[in-house]
């Protein structure tokens, strides 16, 4: 997540889905598991922050329109 700002929500979700699916494979490469888990949890956090930001922005905009 070094370049968080360059990653869209959709890209993050797509990557997350792929990571989770690969983690669930019975013959998943254990050597990579740790890194994949770490990346997947970072993406989850990113997506949560993104959603939180989207909701906050939307409500702020809608509230200012409501007051006008």
């Amino acid at each position: 997540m070094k370049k968080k700002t360059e990653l869209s929500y959709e890209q993050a979700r797509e990557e997350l889905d792929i990571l989770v699916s690969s983690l669930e494979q019975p013959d998943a490469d254990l050597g990579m598991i740790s890194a994949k888990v770490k990346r997947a949890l970072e993406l989850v956090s990113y997506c949560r922050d993104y959603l939180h930001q989207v909701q906050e922005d939307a409500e702020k905009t809608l509230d200012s329109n409501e007051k006008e």
Partner: protein
Amino acid sequence: MERLDLIDLQKRLEQAVNDAFKEPCWVRAEINRMDVRNGHCHLELVQKEPQTDRLLAKAQAVIWAGVFSMLGPFFRTTAGMELRAGLQVLLCVEPRFHALYGMSLVVSDIDPSYTLGGLEMERRKTLERLEKEGILNMNRELPFPRLPRRLAVISSPTAAGYQDFTNHLEASSFGFILRLFPALMQGSEAPESIIKAMEQVADASVPFDLLILIRGGGAVADLHCYDNYDLAAHIAQFPLPVITGIGHQRDTHIADRVAALSLKTPTAVADFLAGLMEQEEDSLIQLSHRLERAVHNRISREKQDLLHMIKDIKGAVRWLIQQHTHTLDILEERIRKNNPLTLLEKGYSLTLCAGRTVRDASALKAGDKVHTVLRKGAFDATVENIEQ
């Protein structure tokens, strides 16, 4: 055969007339000429055949100054017109024969109701004629302009009524455009004069919205001219709506009947025109208020709708975020379930051989190098013995 001097003949005629008319009598006649000299009113009375107008009888009459000073005002106030040539009259006369001046009728009284009756009959005939010709209501049927501003006025420029009319219009400050076409507005010459002015209006290069006929007002005057057929026919067929403000106090005249609108006085005409403008102004103000209210109501409605929409959007955003958050929760749970570090925390270890997880001991052989991962750290080892 008797031979007489003229004076004797005249004296005998005088006596014969005096004997024949010991009392005054009432006589019906038309005034053919009328002349007032030194206060005495000299009349030429005639009787015509009704159908042909052929002269049947003619006589001279006189109303002496002392009598005329009373009969003149009496006739004027009762009949609403001046005694004049052209009128049918019922006169109380004493026939007199003078040796020097001949036959004469000395008038002592007049019955104005007879003249009025005759005029009323004439009026009815004129109305019937206009109706028969199909023009009686022509002017009334013309479309009346909504905002008449360009006014052709036929009046006497020095008349008080005309001044009142212009003063009232100016006071209204609605910017009427007036043009006066002067004419005689009363008396026997008025119809011809007014018709001439109407022709000038019709020929004018500037278009007008209305034609207005107004008379001076003031003393009671002879308005019989406004029952004239030619004038009525011209008004009825005039291409613009005509308004009359003749200023009479009694019955309306035929000119009023055929005009699009008849009002009592010039001031009433001015007030009517200003009133039309005021009504229009009020109507525009009402419309602008309605427009303002309509816009205000519409905007309020739209604002309400937008507020509802904003609430709906908020709900939708929350729901969407909730859905995504829920999905993330599930994903996170799946990640945690598959995290081998969770098992390592509990004391289990992972053993790898050549980079692959060792799940079955039979996959190994003695001497293989393995890598074992613990919760904390890892170590390498060599397989010595295998148990299956």
